[in-house]
């Protein structure tokens, strides 16, 4: 038979990793991405990638990496895939090194490693503070090589709208929209892999890139794929608040010795330098002596919230605390953190080597995502998922520098598994439902263009983001979650009255955005209602009404399925694979 034809949607680390494996195995790939793949969100990753290579004589092992990841994720992640990832990580970092990633080096010419949150080992390989950029480029270059050989065909500037699913419930391809000509088209494939990243845009402002809307995930969710653990999103403790986005200040700043503090006296008006050591409250170090500033993100984020909102110690009464690097010499900072310090200086106009940075938590990462089995396949045969868009590797909280490795590992698995699957899938009958799906999408487009009414999509989006950030991030109460869901339902209803100011059919970005908005609204309900159902606190999910973890009832994966826009998602729970490490209480104030 002919070589299997696979479609990969998304050209971040996960998508490109999948493409490389497929091309290497002799398959051909159509690669779809909204932005040129080299501009994917993965380029933003700063701090590094984890692998227990134990090059610092600390006795680090992949088993220890596995334990840190499971513990950090509060035991919610299925253990088999996480174990596989941690065991593969050293090989992945070696491969990236061979591909030419300019990782920082030790004097002997070996890979250098730094510390990150939630571990006591130096386990994070890094390329300055632009690791994601360097990794993405390395994979992008390999894909370009396969493109030159004709094994990969890129469709950049095309947006995935939906899967083509035949009458037997098997995926046979996709429908995509050319973002220039606004042309709709179906593309056939033996299997498709979604690698479409996180859902930050649902929260309005986040650390994510503009195209991280979760629209693709939501589209297949509405076509029948389960969405798992939607309620688990990560709020990163250290971000720079901004008008258009929250810019991340990487955990590596603390990995290299950065300290978080506030003046002990509320509203202390003195210049930073005039506040003596004894009058500074290094709250993470005091509360968590063992891990100090490198407690996991959920822990640090809640601590900052407490300092600001309960103790009233925010800087100048504002929701902000210091992240201080000024005790470290400029040379070291430049060498190891250059990229992120530049971001701070460029966007805030203050030199962080001289003055402590002012930071606050912000929406950062999507732990939940498309439900997949251990082969990275969703419940719809032929639809695979890898990277931040699926739920597998991080449980209730992701450890820093574990995402890049999970994206590459997931992509490396999804690719070959998709080929395996494609070899045995029954032949498609007719067009596999492509024409019907194109017609369904054309109808949605037609309706949107004809809509009358007074609603503006960007304003609805702001309202969504505000409600989600206020009620569905760090601290969750059942009554406000309920109100948030009602708000989303209201927005869905107002969505019907969106009147596009631009109805043209050429490079119409607001049209594309408005389509995404519908999907964002549908998906945000799984976050809010999933959080409402989970009456416990676990990892990043924190409910003051239920402050303890409740393994009896909730050591379970949440699975949402779509029943209709009005009906809302339906939920069920699935047991978690805990065969290797027995769940134990998670605490960071002492050794684990």
């Amino acid at each position, binding site marked *: 038979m002919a070589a299997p034809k696979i479609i990969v949607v998304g050209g971040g680390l996960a998508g490109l990793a999948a493409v490389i494996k497929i091309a290497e195995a002799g398959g051909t790939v159509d690669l779809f991405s909204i932005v040129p793949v080299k501009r994917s969100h993965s380029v933003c990753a700063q701090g590094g990638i984890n692998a227990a290579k134990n090059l610092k004589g600390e006795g680090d092992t992949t088993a220890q990496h596995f334990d840190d990841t499971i513990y950090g994720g509060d035991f919610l992640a299925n253990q088999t895939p996480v174990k596989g990832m941690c065991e593969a990580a050293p090989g992945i970092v*070696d491969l990236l090194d061979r591909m030419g990633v300019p990782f920082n080096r030790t004097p002997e010419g070996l890979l250098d490693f730094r510390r990150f949150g939630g571990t006591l080992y130096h386990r994070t390989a890094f390329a300055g503070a632009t690791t994601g950029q360097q990794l993405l480029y390395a994979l992008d270059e390999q894909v370009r090589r396969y493109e030159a050989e004709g094994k990969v065909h890129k469709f950049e500037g095309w947006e995935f709208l939906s899967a083509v699913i035949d009458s037997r419930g098997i995926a046979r391809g996709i429908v995509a929209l050319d973002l220039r000509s606004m042309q709709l088209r179906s593309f056939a494939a033996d299997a498709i892999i979604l690698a479409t990243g996180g859902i930050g845009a649902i929260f309005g402002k986040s650390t994510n*890139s503009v195209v991280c809307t979760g629209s693709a995930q939501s589209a297949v969710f509405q076509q029948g794929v389960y969405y798992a653990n939607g309620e688990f999103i990560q709020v990163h403790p250290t971000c720079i608040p901004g008008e258009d986005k929250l810019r991340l200040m990487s955990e590596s700043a603390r990995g290299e010795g950065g300290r978080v503090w506030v003046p002990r006296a509320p509203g202390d008006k003195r210049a930073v330098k005039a506040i003596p050591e004894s009058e500074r409250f290094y709250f993470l170090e005091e509360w968590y002596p063992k891990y100090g500033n490198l407690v996991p993100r959920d822990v640090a984020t809640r601590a900052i919230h407490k300092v600001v909102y309960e103790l009233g110690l925010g800087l100048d009464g504002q929701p902000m605390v210091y992240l201080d690097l000024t005790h470290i010499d400029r040379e070291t900072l430049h060498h190891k953190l250059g990229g992120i310090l530049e971001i701070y200086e460029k966007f805030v106009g203050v030199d962080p080597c001289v003055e402590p940075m002012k930071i606050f938590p912000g929406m950062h990462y999507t732990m939940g995502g498309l439900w997949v089995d251990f082969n990275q396949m969703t419940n719809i045969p032929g639809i695979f998922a890898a990277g931040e868009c699926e739920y597998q590797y991080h449980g209730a909280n992701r450890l820093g520098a574990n995402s890049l490795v999970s994206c590459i590992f997931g992509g490396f698995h999804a690719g070959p598994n998709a080929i395996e699957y494609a070899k045995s899938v029954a032949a498609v009958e007719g067009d596999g439902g492509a024409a019907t799906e194109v017609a369904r999408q054309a109808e949605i487009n037609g309706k949107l263009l004809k809509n009358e009414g007074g609603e503006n999509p960007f304003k609805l989006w702001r309202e969504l983001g505000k409600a989600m950030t206020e009620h569905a991030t760090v601290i969750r109460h059942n009554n406000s979650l309920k109100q948030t869901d009602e708000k989303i339902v209201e927005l869905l209803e107002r969505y019907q009255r969106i009147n596009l100011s*631009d109805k*043209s059919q050429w490079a119409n970005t607001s049209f594309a955005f408005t389509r995404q908005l519908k999907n964002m609204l549908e998906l945000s309900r799984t976050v809010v209602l999933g959080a409402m159902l989970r009456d416990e606190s676990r990892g990043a999910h924190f409910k003051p009404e239920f402050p303890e973890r409740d393994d009896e009832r909730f050591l379970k994966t949440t699975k949402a399925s779509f029943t209709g826009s009005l009906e809302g998602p339906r939920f069920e729970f699935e047991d978690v694979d805990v065969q290797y490490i027995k769940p134990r209480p998670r605490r960071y104030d002492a050794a684990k």
Partner: protein
Amino acid sequence: MATKTVTFEIKRQASPDAPDVWERFELDWRPGMNVVSAMMEIAANPVTADGKPTTPVTYDSNCLEEICGSCAMRINGRASMACSALVDNLDQPIRVEPLTKFPLVRDLQVDRSVLFENLMRVKAWVPVDGTYDLGSGPRVYPQQQEANYPLSNCISCTCCMEVCPQFNVTTGFVGAATIAQVKLFNNHPTGKVFKEDRLRALAGDGGVQECGYAQNCVKACPKQIPLTNAISDISRDVMVQKVKDWLKS
């Protein structure tokens, strides 16, 4: 209370063959505002300064932190990244136009795929044997990493090409970014196996010889890539390669 406002003038063009028009916008000033956040504001309220309804502006952006290279445009006449262009640092009215050296798509969006094509032409990759586990990569000393890392920071924004007097259809010049990538891959212990191919690709018309050393590129580069340095190194290598090839023939 009178709010402080910011004035923008934006060059609009509905499609490649439509006429261009300038539109003026008056927006409320906000702390930390940049050119992209102004575009977002216009999208939420697409009305010009004289109250005329218009459409949201089409432009490219993604990361909003000057690392993805999407949002290059001309701001007050300079090729710049819109996400890091803070309004407070710009003279008003802030005049925004698309890059001029690339085919226009719509408004501020242009087609810059030529850079990716050039990178393919010069084999800008390290030819690894395969993705299976072959152990660690070659040793690289910190000094070498420090030389390569800056080159590897190029975000493919094409600002260097926009400002280059030699980068145009007549010369077919590849531009500074591609030359810098050739240096990067020729420096790599494994990447250098294609060194000769890359140098030959830069030897003829449109190659490194087109550069007139005007140094506009290095001034415009938002990532401070040592471009003129790379160009002179590669020029020398290309010359040496030419002589070698000539002696062999």
